[in-house]
């Protein structure tokens, strides 16, 4: 896919921009020329999960999906893992939330891993959502940091909407994908854009994955690079992103998005989450 890299403010200039009261909705138009861009404008922290204390994530913010999905079909994607909340699969250690994918026979699955979600615990409409993550690697390894519409129990997917802040295929270690799914533009028809690192990769260090989301736009960024903006004009169906969403973080194994692991895939694999922050 085509990707426009746009030179951006450094942190100092971002702060300066904030100080002069840059409007929340004033986001520079994405162009292919050298206009400077603002990565983030929202700085009022409303959720700060830094995973620095204890051994398990804050139960006031995070719950878990357990098993292979409501239909036992790998969460609708033919994923191969069984999700648990065991410390073997999810724990806090060394200042990080660590999700570990293990190769083991468990409840009929060949792998175990974990999926955290803030459903009914932390939900918000609009804002800046970001996480600092070091990703795992290898064929069939599928970590994600994403959001679902909080009305999903009444408004089935894709009607509820999905914002994928970061999805990653372990077999393409330099590239992540940011997407939205909604009615008429879900699964293979999702509105997506890839972002590829130059002379670096996502499994050898931490990177910040974020969106800034307002009434008529979702801006996608990695570190200090704003790489995409999705607006109602870009989606091929209703814009379903004017309501609260909750956060999910998971590490899937296999699935239609990227295919199964192969004999070269190394296990265990770890997804390290340094923090999750939400601003408005």
């Amino acid at each position, binding site marked *: 896919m085509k990707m426009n890299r746009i030179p951006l403010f450094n942190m100092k200039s971002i702060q300066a921009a904030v100080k002069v009261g840059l409007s929340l909705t004033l986001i520079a138009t994405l162009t292919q020329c050298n206009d400077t861009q603002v990565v983030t404008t929202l700085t009022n922290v409303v959720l700060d999960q830094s995973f620095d204390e204890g051994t398990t994530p804050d139960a006031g913010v995070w719950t878990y999906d357990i098993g292979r999905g409501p239909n036992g079909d790998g969460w609708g994607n033919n994923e191969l893992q069984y999700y648990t909340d065991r410390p073997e699969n999810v724990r806090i250690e060394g200042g990080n939330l660590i999700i570990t994918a293990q190769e083991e026979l468990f409840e009929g699955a060949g792998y175990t891993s974990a999926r955290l979600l803030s459903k009914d615990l932390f939900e918000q409409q609009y804002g800046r959502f970001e996480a600092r993550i070091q990703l795992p690697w290898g064929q069939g390894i599928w970590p994600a940091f994403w959001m679902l519409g909080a009305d999903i129990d009444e408004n089935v997917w894709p009607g509820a909407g999905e914002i994928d802040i970061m999805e990653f295929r372990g077999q*393409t*270690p330099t590239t992540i994908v940011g997407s939205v799914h909604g009615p008429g533009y879900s699964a293979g028809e999702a509105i997506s854009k890839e972002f590829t690192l130059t*002379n*670096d*990769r996502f*499994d050898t260090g931490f990177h910040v994955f974020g969106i800034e989301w307002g009434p008529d736009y979702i801006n996608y960024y990695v570190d200090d690079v704003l790489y995409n903006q999705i607006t109602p004009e870009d989606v091929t169906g209703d814009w379903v992103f004017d309501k609260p969403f909750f956060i999910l973080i998971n590490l899937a194994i296999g699935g239609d998005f990227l295919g199964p692991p192969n004999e070269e895939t190394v296990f265990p694999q770890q997804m390290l989450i340094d923090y999750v922050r939400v601003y408005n």
Partner: protein
Amino acid sequence: MNSAMNNSLIKLKQLFFFGSGLVLLSGCWTPSDEVDFAGFPQNGDVFLDGFSGGLEYLPFAGSKLNAFQVDDEVFYQGTASMRFDVPNGDDPDGNYAGAIFPDFGGRDLTGFDAITFWAKGNSATTIDEIGFGNYFGDNEHLVTILGLRLSTSWQKFVIPIPDPTKLSREQGLFWYSTGAKPAGLAGQGYTFWIDELQFEKLGTVAQPRPAIMNGADVEETSFTGSSPSVIGLTQTFNLADGTNQTVSAAPSYFSFSSSNGSVATVNELGVISVLGQGTTTITASLGGVPASGSLILTSTGAFDAAPTPTRSADNVISIFSDAYENNPVDFFNGYWTFSTTQGQDDLNIAGDNVIRYTALNFVGIEFKAPTVDASNMTHFHVDLRTPEGIDPGDFIRVELGDFGPDNAFGGGNDVSGSVTFGSSSLRTDEWISLDIPLSSFGLGSRGNLAQIIFVTDGTVQELLVDNMYFYSE
């Protein structure tokens, strides 16, 4: 993989001695303690559109010397590429192509993580060996990819550096060696091109997974005074396109350790010195990353040598013995198809050469230049020893092969015959000396003997062999 690598190293060693007289090294380089090691050029260019500064071309002795040329008509980028014309298998000017491209001034390559190039062939083919670190010297940083597959369109290749911090003064910038396909006299030559050959800092060479013993935990018995080597040394990286690239890496990239220094120590070249009785585990790391695989070495203590032969040399034609002058031998393990057998004449215990086979199902020894005329001999002697317990079904079959008057394998005149020794003839940890009448092999002719074959079908997997000779009494 091991055997190919070993063979190539042996070949390189021979070529060095032979080749250093053949090829003039231009310039004069004198090592000095006062050299400023920080000062070597940090130039990663090898060949972009021509030789980079200091680069030389030295073909291997025995290779087709003019196999390489600069091609200014075919190139990936710029104005020229490196073109290699690999000869047919029967080319009288050399039946393979191979060369090193050194800079004897040395380069500081610590800032790079790979050597990269674009390459294509005039047909889809395979380069047998390609890498860097070969400068016709100790080659302590030798890196090789075995069997690099080329297509007919330009493709970028990445050969990762196992540990760039080691390359503060590297002379061997690039090397290759490859022959006709398939191997042998009937093999067809081919042409391939390499362009934009350079060391690069890609930043995407990641997830190092070094290995020794090819990643396996290998158990081996040994003896005080022997000096086995740690083999199967590789480094594997995950590259930007998601592929896992494994290279053979020289021992000097690794740090070796022995869990019990009173049993054995291991030096920086991966050579083990067995010092006493007991068990030790040899492990390694590369750049601080523990290597997978280990060598679990059990030393049975002082080596109990086979009985020294006493027959007069006048009545003996020897194939393998320290007591006699031996007939030339092509190999002590042909690594034939379906053979699982490892090992050959690689055990030297304080001057006593012994053959050791492991994972033995069958193994062939060949001595065809010249073949042996045993017409006037009456017996074949061999000393055998296994550390294994003997089960009722165990056996060792000794087979002799005669190539017939054409002195060549095949040709419709080969004959062979064998004698089988069952479990009642075998002993654990004790030399058995077999004196087998040649008449019992049932050979029509023994004027052109060229092969000795041991067959156990895996019933005896570890076998020491010494003092193989024909004699008359």
